[in-house]
């Protein structure tokens, strides 16, 4: 029995997924011992944020076949919404330090970001993607890609025109004492940002795995004609998927507002990072995207720490190119062919 487990474990470690995850864990432990636990904390907070953006991107790609390059702008919309909701709340808190808003105000702002993202996604489907899909699905991937690039430019400039190009940030969400875990001090904001993303990713996973609607989304991603045949309303699922994907990015932007202020092109970095994750973990693989998010976050944090701050895009992208040369379907690429592979 125990021999079997050992054999299974060694077999797993030898797969691309197992190998890269094992290396990642070893690197994380080594770097933590070498420089201190804050490195691990940074990785986890960045990874949690990235997981939200990357699962949204995975949804857009896997379910709708849209290579989304405007996804960062929904991150931006989330942080902007949270900023405009939280600023009046924090002024109110200054005058009424005993109010329940001290604890719950930030949640309202983050929830607002989530809803704002969902609405923005639904509007984009109604005004941009839906009309293109009904007009023609020839060359869909290329056309929808170009559309998202245009959408990105449009949203960045709209932000600049309406709200200005300056940084719209807040001092912090929660004012409590930092929590100490194993010698590392984690601010309440960071800890809660991570918990929020962990809870949302878990809920999202359960939703996709066990609910009727989640199964319908997966069915559409695997075979759209099959989904239509069994009676799934494709238009409804598409609308839901886009707003869900955008809401995931927006809630990420909202919960990180204390760290990353909102400005027109704030979405660029999360977008690039999320694309690294999606390419690395295999297109359209949701669980893979979550694991991949933490790996890319680790890579980025370690690069900043050991190579220098300017290198945090160079090293991860170089490594990803290398991985792709050896494993083109991504490290979690599944053995079963899906619609995208046809």
């Amino acid at each position: 029995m125990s021999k079997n487990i050992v054999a299974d474990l060694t077999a797993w470690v030898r797969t691309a997924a197992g190998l890269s995850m094992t290396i990642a864990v070893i690197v994380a432990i080594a770097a933590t011992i070498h420089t201190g636990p804050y490195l691990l904390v940074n990785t986890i907070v960045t990874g949690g944020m990235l997981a939200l953006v990357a699962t949204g991107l995975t949804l857009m790609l896997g379910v709708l076949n849209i290579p989304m390059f405007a996804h960062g702008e929904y991150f931006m919309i989330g942080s902007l919404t949270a900023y405009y909701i939280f600023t009046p709340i924090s002024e109110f808190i200054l005058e009424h330090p005993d109010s329940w808003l001290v604890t719950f105000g930030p949640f309202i702002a983050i929830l607002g970001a989530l809803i704002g993202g969902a609405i923005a996604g639904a509007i984009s489907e109604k005004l941009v993607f839906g009309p293109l899909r009904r007009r023609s699905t020839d060359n869909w991937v290329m056309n929808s890609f170009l559309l998202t690039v245009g959408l990105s430019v449009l949203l960045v400039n709209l932000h600049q025109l309406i709200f200005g190009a300056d940084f719209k940030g807040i001092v912090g969400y929660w004012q409590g004492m930092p929590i100490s875990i194993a010698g590392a001090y984690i601010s309440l904001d960071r800890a809660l940002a991570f918990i929020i993303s962990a809870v949302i990713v878990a809920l999202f996973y359960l939703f996709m795995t066990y609910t009727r609607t989640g199964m319908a989304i997966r069915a559409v991603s695997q075979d759209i004609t099959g989904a239509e045949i069994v009676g799934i309303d494709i238009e409804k699922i598409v609308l839901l998927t886009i707003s869900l994907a955008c809401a995931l990015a927006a809630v990420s932007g909202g919960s990180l507002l204390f760290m990353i202020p909102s400005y027109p092109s704030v979405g660029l970095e999360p977008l690039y990072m999320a694309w690294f994750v999606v390419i690395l973990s295999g297109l359209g693989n949701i669980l893979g995207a979550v694991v991949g998010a933490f790996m890319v976050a680790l890579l980025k944090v370690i690069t900043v720490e050991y190579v220098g701050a300017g290198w945090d895009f160079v090293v991860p992208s170089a490594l990803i190119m290398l991985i792709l040369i050896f494993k083109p379907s991504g490290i979690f690429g599944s053995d079963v062919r899906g619609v995208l592979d046809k």
Partner: protein
Amino acid sequence: MLLEVKNLNAGYGYLQILRDVSLQIDKGEYVGIVGPNGAGKSTTMKTIAGLISPMSGSVVFNGEDITGLSGSAVAKKGISFVSEEMNLFVNMTVQENLYMGAYTIKEKHLKNERLDFVFELFPRLAERKKQLAGTMSGGERKMLAIGRGMMSNPSLMLVDEPSFGLAPQLTTSVFASLEVLIKNGMTILVVEQNVTKTLAVTDRGYVLENGKVGLEGNSADLAEDSYVRKVFLGV
């Protein structure tokens, strides 16, 4: 009359395939469409199933005009389409695929009743219910596609090429399962390459050529027809 298709014209983009196709099916009937490759048999089925919207003509099901409805709306009316390509959900298990087939049924116990029925008809699927559909053999996939089509308890099944790519023995068992469905009161429209087999099992048949209905009648008569014998059976 369960299904009445009148003067259907349909195709892909500007390319017209079907020309004034008309056919009728009564409740409980077992009807076949035969014809050479590229005749428009699958196109006819896809148009009835709502996957293609027709240029003109009408499809009336259960007295209700369903022309131009989307595929999912047609499915909700009680028409189940088992396509040539099967369109299975490859990353889902056999059982998940079957449950998806019952998507239009909300009550869990009704879904499970259907599942038991399908498993009884195809014991092979029951044995492999935890296997991913994408890893099944061609014949097993065909069974799964037919099984999935039965899960919604449809009043009409459109089955495109049930025996395509199957060994003779499996072909016999797939046709036997359709036979069981007919005995249970199901109405089936089947498209087949295998003309002899189709005309032997069905009640009535249509011969489709170049997008037009050439001949129609009782299957037994069609099988005796000199034109059919010459063109399709080579005798």
